């Protein structure tokens, strides 16, 4: 039976942080698209207090501030997809939104939820990793609102596990405006184009200069306990002229770098093959860009 004892819906970040500080036994509800199925299936137990964070204005909006794009934790996938700011500066996020679940889920699901759910296959996480996004966490440890920033690469610790403390609230993400000639692409592989969990996903970003990428960032999804950057692949790719031989070599590094598992969606062997073949395909596009 339903064991939720309290329901709270704070109307400000202060209130929410205060409540979280007082009681750790809180489950946060944003879009609910992960929370509901996970609690129904028994995978996740809702704590004594359910906090609906939907009415907290500080968690909303997509803005540009001091050379950074800030996306509020409550921004839905649909909002991001329709944002002109994102379209202009961070089109890789649109690519990910476009492959995110279904229209209905995109209308409800929030970016903050996708991040805090910390699925190794989370669709928005790979593009955010290659954009070197930072998460902004708010709390009220000693009577005043405090914020800390953490690079997304350091945020994930395991499937469904992050460095967010129980008293903290994810306020939003901040992404530095990409430099000129920035190139960033995302590829998700699933058995169907909609409503699918990635078999694998790949993000590649860098500054493009006649067939080479510099300041390279590569991230892979669904091949490790957390969505992960791929330093060896990045190193192999950094500044390298992308001829056929180089692309082959880099794709091989990528395949060797990932450590996927067998599950009902795919075997580890097949995931490694996909990482190799799709990395190769994406780099061929870079070479032609």
């Amino acid at each position, binding site marked *: 039976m339903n064991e939720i004892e309290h329901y709270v819906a704070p109307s400000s970040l202060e209130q929410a942080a205060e409540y979280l500080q007082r009681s750790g036994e809180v489950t946060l509800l944003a879009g609910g698209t992960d929370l509901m199925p996970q609690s129904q299936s028994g995978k996740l137990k809702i704590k004594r207090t359910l906090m609906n964070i939907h009415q907290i204005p500080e968690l909303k909006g997509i803005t540009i501030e001091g050379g950074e794009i800030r996306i509020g934790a409550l921004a839905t996938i649909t909002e991001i997809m329709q944002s002109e700011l994102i379209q202009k500066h961070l089109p890789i996020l649109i690519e990910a939104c476009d492959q995110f679940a279904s229209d209905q889920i995109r209308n409800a699901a929030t970016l903050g939820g996708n991040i805090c759910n910390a699925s190794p296959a989370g669709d928005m996480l790979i593009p955010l990793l290659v954009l070197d996004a930072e998460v902004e966490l708010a709390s009220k440890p000693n009577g005043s609102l405090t914020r800390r920033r953490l690079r997304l690469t350091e945020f994930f610790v395991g499937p469904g596990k992050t460095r967010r403390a129980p008293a903290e609230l994810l306020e939003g993400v901040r992404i530095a405006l990409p430099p000129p000639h920035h190139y960033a692409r995302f590829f998700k592989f699933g058995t*169907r184009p909609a409503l699918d969990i990635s078999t694998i996903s790949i993000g590649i970003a860098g500054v493009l200069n006649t067939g080479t990428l510099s300041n390279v960032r590569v991230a892979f999804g669904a091949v490790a306990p957390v969505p992960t950057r791929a330093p060896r692949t990045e190193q192999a790719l950094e500044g390298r002229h992308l001829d056929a031989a180089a692309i082959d070599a880099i794709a091989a590094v990528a395949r060797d770098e990932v450590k996927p598992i067998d599950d009902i969606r795919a075997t580890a062997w097949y995931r490694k*093959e996909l990482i190799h073949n799709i990395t190769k395909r994406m780099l061929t596009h870079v070479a032609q860009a």
Partner: protein
Amino acid sequence: MNGAEKKARFIAPDTLIGKRIPKMDAPEKASGKTRYIHDIDLPGQLYGKILRSTRVHALIKSIDTAAARALPGVHAVITAADIVNQRPIGVAKDHFPLKTDKVRSLRDEVAAVAAESEQIALEALKLIRVEYEDLPILTDPAEALKPGATLIHPEPRQPGGQDALKPSGPVAFTGKPDNVAMRFDYCHGDVVQAEAESDVVVEDTFKLHYVTHCCMGVSGMIADFDSSGNLIMYSNTQVPFLHKREFAEYLNMDPARIRIIQPAIGGGFGSKLDIYPFEVICVFLAQAAKRPVKLVFTREEEFISSPTRQPVLLTLRSGCKKDGTLTFRVVNTLHDNGAYTSWGATTPFVMMQTFSSLYRVPHCDYHTTAVYTNNPYAGSFRGYGNLQATFAVEAHMDKLAEAIGMDALDFRLKNAQAQGEVTGQGMEFDSCGFKECLDTAAERSDFRRKFAENLKNRNSSDPIKHGVGIASMLHVGGGAKIYPSDGCGTILKLDDFGQVTLITGASEIGQGSETVLSQLVCEELGLPMSALTVVNNDTAITPWDVGVHASRTTFIAGNSALGAARLAKAKVLAAAARKFECPASDLDLRGGHVIKAASGEALIDLPRLMRNLHFSDKAELVMTTFYYEPPSSYQDKRYKGNVSAAYAWASQVVEVEVDTETGIVKMTRITAAHDVGRVLNRLGIEGQIEGGVVMGQGYALTESLIIENGVTRNPNFRDYKLVTAPEIPEIDITFIETMDGEGPQGAKGVGEAPAICVAAATANAIYNATGVRIYGLPFTPERVYRALHGKGEKLVPLTAKAA
């Protein structure tokens, strides 16, 4: 000017046949007003929930329900021990609704609760303690056949004595000496001789997987006893009249005291042909609680405890001569029956038809062994074994053609059945548009050109390969004579407003039967569709029908409705003839009027004539009844006979893109040519074809119920992947109208046909694209990728002995 001088009105001939008529229930469904079982609540109703086994195969040592019974709000907790004389259910009577001493699969029902809310019922389930003792698990049908294998249905141990198998009686009482649930052996001709005379022989083994129906409406029912002890069931069954009789047997009741009402049914596809434990348990709960009980599945329960399509391991050996004449087929199949026997075990009835009779095969041997395992059990599912059989047959049509260097289409045309043929199995093809289907599908898809072009491009550097494949199917299209009657009754009532009530035994399960039946009646009576009301969901009202199965409703119920309409028309015209003092043959019905047949001049509107009839001193009602029994015959013991009054044919061409770097197969176009006899409702039949094709696409590409060691690993729509809208290819549909002599207005059944050959054609298309043939389904990216890289699953051939 007086009435007699009123200007004569003429009504031009018109027809409803072949028109695009929206389904009568569409506005209700589209606006969310349709009332499904979920929407129905009876006063005083309780909620039922079932406790299922947590073990795949185990002895039940004890069940403690004390805490559950003590929970406030709980009205009944039942186990097998609470049911006196529980009767086994199912096709082989091997299945107790509530398990007695043993659970044989993970879906097994151990206890059930009726409570004031679903939440309380669920809470009560958690309080039931069951102690199990695990038994060895059998999930491989080949293992289950080996001597010494654990028996799934051993003879129940007698209280003080020896085990001794009793010769008769239900399996659940007498047990089985081995794990064989059913065997089928069919033959015509001499395959040994035929093989010796063949120029080419091919043999392959195919593995067909588990899929399930995924009806949008999950299973559910309400059981209610009235104060006289009569049982009213609100049920989603596809076969209400058969179930009435069967429930009576299981409940030890007089069938006359059972009434089945069907609320709108959210899809059937064959899943609701058998009686399942939950239905009997729901009645037990209502008996125990003395209150109406509603039991509706969750989606997870629907996945775990619904029947599956029959998984099949199949070895096919085929031969032909150099000139392209087919010589023989030998088929051995192993059916994984699961723990209990439902209709899945009997799919050989249909499978053998495809092997023996889709193409002209002079010699054919067919053998099936259906074997008990601890897996989920297989039921009937749109196509009824034909998807599996067609998958193998059509692979061999391609392979044989290639082996003798003959064009794949020419090879098929050479061996295709034609009108007037009687097959080795005794099927008589009074109408047969098979060759037209082949030609049409091939022409409309430009099959030959694309086939040759794709072969040339197989070794190009582009990782995306294009393929085109063709496959065809034969399926019953005029009912299937397997029950004491294959008939359907109709009552037709014309009221004093000229409104017609069509009371038919045929159930509507979303397939559009009430629309097409109304159309046939309206056509006959010259009425608009708006004049029709259909009553089709209450055994206390409707006349007998065998049920919705075997693509029979349009044909059988259509002929029945037509028969009743013709009687009504004769009655109305006879009355008009008396009134207008002319022969009835001079009159006709058109546009809601009695008209002069020759000129179309309207004589009287139907409502007025009806009132004249009703409210006169010789009062007469126009109510007619008709029972239609098709002129088909039962199969003999060797499975021979003309079981259907008509047969449906189709050819489909599937075009694919295979990404060789990921293994993903994208369907780009499907060209379908279907011999449907005649198109009645064009909109409805297009919907049937499109829906069936997409179901076939799911079977071919994405759908798979993953069962590991008896456990369903993906009981949800996240991991059980139905096809979604973006993947549905362009579907080009052509109807071949062969005007079947026995069909209503020439029509034949088409319900199952469109799903049958998609997977077979897809396999051929992948081969055309890549040169790699894949023998197992579904063609998921990883399966295809593995096959392309020589890492495909190796299948061990079945020999006659092994099967």
